[in-house]
């Protein structure tokens, strides 16, 4: 409990410091930081539309945050969330387009297809790690590009809808995730994200497989002495981690765009790393982290519209948050210098 409080406090200070540095940057460039932040805040929380936008942006980030956090619990670094999300999105879109089924079968089917594709995409690096010791950081980065390019090819050629844009046709009504608030981007994907956060928590902390995963994450050698096969656990962890990222793509395709559009993800997979770091690799933390970055995204776009400060400031703030949160030593060392 004490650790949670100190972690939250620490994250809070890190965010505050990042916002402060961001304000300095805005002032240095001749704009008003107060009016920029006011616009950002209004755009993120100002009215029900703003809140819906924040939650809509947070939904895929919860999934990609869970993806990174899950793998990390097994001691693996999955930075392939972006590719897994994109292939998951395409699999869901194709299921939504080419299969006819009643809604209560069609939606689960599309979700499963997305999970399977995302899982497959992460299983490969997991297997390469377990079998050949190939560093998963590099292989997942490479798989990102392979996945994105493959999907780009598929929607530019075989599955391209008529017209100039590289996208599929719309999915069937029966595969569409319902909107939670009409005329916003907020769909049932959020509920799905919350559900899977809870399931991830249950799996990791209340099942024997979850115990094995965390044991390997803490120390693969002693886990092996304890009768756990680390290779199998690693492959499983990567696959599940990929499924979670795939679900992020499913939510975007079935809930927001209703089709697969080439390049639909503005880097949700990479943002998942930030979300997981901020969330201390815990599902509840991932939700909080995703909410913060979702708010920054939604608010940043509003700030961009009303003030002259570009939305890209949000990236700077986001990067600073990661930098500060990832280096707790920093504050310790600075604290020591003062004394």
């Amino acid at each position, binding site marked *: 409990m004490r650790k949670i409080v100190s972690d939250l406090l620490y994250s809070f200070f890190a965010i505050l410091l990042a916002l402060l540095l961001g304000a300095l*940057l805005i002032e240095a460039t001749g704009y008003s930081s107060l009016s920029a932040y006011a616009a950002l805040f209004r755009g993120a929380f100002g009215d029900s539309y703003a809140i819906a936008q924040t939650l809509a942006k947070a939904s895929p980030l919860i999934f990609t945050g869970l993806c990174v956090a899950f793998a990390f619990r097994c001691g693996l670094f999955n930075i392939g969330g972006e590719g897994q999300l994109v292939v998951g999105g395409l699999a869901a879109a194709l299921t939504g387009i080419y299969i006819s089924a009643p809604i209560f079968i069609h939606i689960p089917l599309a979700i499963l297809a997305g999970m399977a594709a995302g899982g497959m995409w992460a299983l490969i690096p997991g297997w390469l790690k377990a079998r050949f010791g190939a560093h998963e950081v590099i292989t997942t980065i490479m798989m990102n590009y392979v996945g994105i390019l493959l999907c780009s090819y598929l929607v530019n050629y075989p599955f391209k809808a008529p017209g100039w844009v590289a996208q599929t046709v719309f999915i069937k009504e029966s595969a569409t995730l319902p909107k939670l608030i009409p005329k916003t981007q907020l769909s049932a994907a959020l509920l799905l994200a919350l559900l899977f956060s809870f399931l991830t928590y249950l799996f990791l902390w209340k099942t024997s497989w979850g115990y094995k995963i965390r044991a390997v994450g803490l120390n693969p050698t002693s886990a092996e002495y304890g009768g756990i096969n680390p290779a199998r656990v690693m492959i499983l962890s990567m696959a599940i981690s990929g499924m979670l990222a795939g679900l992020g793509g499913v939510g975007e395709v079935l809930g927001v765009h209703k089709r697969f559009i080439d390049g639909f993800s503005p880097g949700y997979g990479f943002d998942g790393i930030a979300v997981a770091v901020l969330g201390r690799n815990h599902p509840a933390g991932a939700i909080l982290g995703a909410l913060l970055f979702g708010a920054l995204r939604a608010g940043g776009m509003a700030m961009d519209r009303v003030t002259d400060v570009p939305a890209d400031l949000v990236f*700077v703030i986001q990067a600073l948050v990661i930098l500060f949160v*990832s280096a707790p030593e920093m504050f310790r060392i600075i604290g020591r210098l003062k004394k």
Partner: protein
Amino acid sequence: MIEWIITLLASTLRLSTPLTLAAIGGTFSERSGVINIGLEGMILMGAFAAAAVTYYTGNPWTGVVAALLFGGLLASVHALLSITFKANQVVSGVAVNILALGLTTLMMQIIWGNRGASEGVEGLGTWSVPVINDIPVLGPILSNHCPVVYMMLVIVVLAHILLFKTSLGLHIRACGEHPEAADTVGINVCRIRYFCVILSGMLAGLGGSFLSLGQLNVFSQNMSAGRGFIALAAMIFGKWKPFGAFGASLMFAFTDALQMKLQGFGIPFQFVAMIPYVLTILVLAGAVRRAVAPAAIGKPYVKE
């Protein structure tokens, strides 16, 4: 046909330049034990600094110096975080990439009032190399390139000598393989790692300056466009050696140049663009040729 091949090979050499520089940067960083995912951001920062400073001074060479400085500056953030503050090296590298993307776009808006592309700036132009210029076939391939291309060729040789023929190089490699042992014999592990990470940022930044001053003479948003990650692939494919990195970069650049030439021949560019990534995965799996990373990579060094 011969004309076609000559332009193909000349553009291969050109396109390989930012890749090689960043890949050699990555080689230094990883040889000393620090993973550098931030190469992408460092290239971008270098490209931006080069264009921005040239815009104000009118002299592209000041831009090149700025690219070295700002690439190194961004790398020192990565060094500070991952060496002194012992942050996770991958996380720190990812943050550096996001930081570079945000900062450069923000600054573009402020300097040029446009976040898509900068105004045109003075470019570095090309050098025609005496003697080589007159050799048939070889002349048109090797001559009349941007000066950064020739700097890159010199850097490949210098990097090899530094890494494998000097005691500093031995110290660098020792820090990446067995930092405890290096420390025992009196090598300052942290200082060596700082040196290598900052050097990697400077090299990546120099590669970035080629992007903005060596071809179109503008800076555009997210100009690095994934080259930092291809450089990472080239570093692995080149087995963490400068000449290997150069060779791999040439190969990847060749597929890129070929893809541009083949546009309109009905081959979807996506498949050609995939080649570097697929090859790297195969290499890591030991299917093409085995590549083993420095042993102590990714671990912060804690002095006992």
